[in-house]
């Protein structure tokens, strides 16, 4: 028995050594990498230290679009403002994730004047879009970030995957994110139904809304302590009014009364289907149109 336990301990020790070696290599080699916001989908690669920004974009893919293709440069040129984008597409733009990104941003001694948070109602109802999403798979290893994820109850599975994916480097988004330039010709009701079914995994429950609403409130409180203005926006979409939109607007109204934040519903701001690459995302031309609108709107 002793012999077995000794052997298994040696086996575990060898593998732990290999693990620590690979993770250390990953950590130190990734620290040297430099990416611009439009070159990577990762947030950690673009959050540096001791920097000041005029605008920070947060949220899901609706926010992420602002840095895809040539949109990021266009935004900065049009607005004359320096922008950082920590929004995450591909299912990684949950509220839990954004809270962690913001905490990490501030802990790196950065500052920002205004946060534009692109938010949707579905994000308030499912752990699959929040703490159980695998958003960490595309982030480099960072002990501080890991600690923040742990403290904010990110699922054990996500944390294990965060470490596991760093044993090699094929998680790295080195190439530019594929940006779609195609245009829709008409609204397809079947596609709209499928999209909504994909977003609203189960029947929404109020207790889940309240859980994630608390996290949004924490984001607002955190921004307030750092003198950052925060604006919530529901992005242009062809999906129509999504389920639970009214619930979200009621909540945002409460936050406005309590903290003085602003919020806008831009669901119908862009109605031309040719401005959309799918029923829920603007294409290159549509994004530029939307950026022009934001720039011209004094509320922003």
């Amino acid at each position, binding site marked *: 028995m002793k*012999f077995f336990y000794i052997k298994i301990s040696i086996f575990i020790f060898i593998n732990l050594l290999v693990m620590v070696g690979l993770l250390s290599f990953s950590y130190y080699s990734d620290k040297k990498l430099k990416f611009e916001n439009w070159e990577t989908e990762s947030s950690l690669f673009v959050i540096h230290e001791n920097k000041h920004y005029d605008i920070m974009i947060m949220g899901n893919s609706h926010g992420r679009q602002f840095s895809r293709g040539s949109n990021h440069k266009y935004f900065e040129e049009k607005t004359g403002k320096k922008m950082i984008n920590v929004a995450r597409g591909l299912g990684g733009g949950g509220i839990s994730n954004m809270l962690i990104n913001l905490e990490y941003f501030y802990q790196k001694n950065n500052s920002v004047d205004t946060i534009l948070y692109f938010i949707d109602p579905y994000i308030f109802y499912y752990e699959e879009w929040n703490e159980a999403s695998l958003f960490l798979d595309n982030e480099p290893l960072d002990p501080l970030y890991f600690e923040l994820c742990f403290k904010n109850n990110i699922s054990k599975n996500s944390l294990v995957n965060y470490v596991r994916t760093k044993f090699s480097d094929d998680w790295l988004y080195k190439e530019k994110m594929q940006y779609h330039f195609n245009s829709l010709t008409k609204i397809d009701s079947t596609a709209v139904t499928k999209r909504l079914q994909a977003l609203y995994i189960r029947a929404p429950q109020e207790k889940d809304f309240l859980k994630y609403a608390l996290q949004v409130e924490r984001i607002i409180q955190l921004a307030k302590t750092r003198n950052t203005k925060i604006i919530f926006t529901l992005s242009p979409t062809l999906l129509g009014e999504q389920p639970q939109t009214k619930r979200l607007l009621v909540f945002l109204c409460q936050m406005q009364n309590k903290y003085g934040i602003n919020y806008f519903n831009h669901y119908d701001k862009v109605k031309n289907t040719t401005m959309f690459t799918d029923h829920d995302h603007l294409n290159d031309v549509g994004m530029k149109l939307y950026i022009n609108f934001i720039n011209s709107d004094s509320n922003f």
Partner: protein
Amino acid sequence: MLFNSLEFLFFFPTVFVLYYFLRQSQRLWMLLIASCIFYMVYRPEYILIILLTIVIDYFAAFQIQKHSGNKRMQWLLASIVANVGILVFFKYSNFAIANWNWLNAKINLHLSSPVLNIALPIGLSFHTFQAMSYTIEVYRGKQEPEKHFGVYALYVLFFPQMVAGPIERPQNILPQLKIKHQFNYTEIVEGLKQVLWGFFKKLVIADRLALFVNAVFDHPQDYSGASVWIGIYFFAFQIYCDFSGYSDIALGCARMLCIRLMTNFNAPYLSTSVKEFWTRWHISLSTWFRDYVYIPLGGNKVSNLKWMRNILIVFVLSGFWHGSNWTFIVWGLLHGVFLLASPQSSPKERTWGASINHPAKFLKWFITFNLVCFACIFFIANSINDCWTIIQHAMSTNFSITKLYEVSSKSQFYLSFVLIFLLMVFEYFHQRKNLFERIQLMPMIPRWSIYIIMFWIILKFGMFSQQQFIYFVF
């Protein structure tokens, strides 16, 4: 609790250490408690259902032994009705209600019923059949009723095999639960190797193939004929690697506790006939149906017509056991028809390895494999209509497979083929010479290198999204 979960990573080593640390009497109760914990992670209240059947069967066995004649049969029937009744209620009541409602609608009776909102207890079909084999064996006089309630309870609840088999027999398990097992280094290492192999099949192969299978069968109309066929082949390997991977982990864990469970899979995709396939696939289920349905019906010792009837009954029941849907019944029926239609293999062609190069043998393998894969359509589809949709799209002459690259990536797609090829090569050579034993005979450095490389392949290439084992829903 899933085998591929963090909880199990802490659970099993704890059980393992306690098992060899405790005295025999304490081991039994520790295993029982651990098995209850293992089961209750899913839905705690459902343990009561299993405990109810355990109590019924425990007492029924004594009554069967105590009485004679009709009384014996009555007690056996009481046990079977209790077990099957619970299985039917949880698994088949909504199927019955749905079909009753369909019939109502057809003949305008207006007597439809609402479907029940009940979740299927995990592994119900498996432990129900295992429990029934106990009382049947007692009735047949081949098994003495187990006096120790804890031992019998553990026979049903033993965690490595309770939720997805193998479906054990009391003669195999009960004696093993009662003897004091000494720490056996060889058994433990063999068990560990089997667990590693099981995780490789489940996490690296099955869960990778699942990405493509789910994409194709969720929207078969979006894929070409060639892509649908690839989806079908991938599903055949997904379900094999998922189920046999689970069985290997179960057998490996049990072996590490010095308990030998029965082999459940024996390279089924190397079969050269459907008959042979069913001696290699889910062996515990096929032998259960053979011993408790086929042989009591007369087996093959009856007229040809009755023999054919017996085969079809067994396969329809087997299909129905897998799921409460007409698709499973058709799946079972197809296998029965394939078996009846296939020619008998001659004694000369008994060994696969001896005649690998024989064209007739290769052709038989090819036909068998494709028949089994074709039947898989009825296994994965949600309805008979979906089956026809899949078959129609499989017949399309569009051979483009580029859409499959979009599911994950081109490299993942081709990696899946490489893994399937490696699996088949391994199984072919493993059949001829037990490769695990050969590895054990190697010097330490190459042996450990294989273990470490396997471990890192699972860590690096494994899909850890906690995809549930397919057979958990049966």
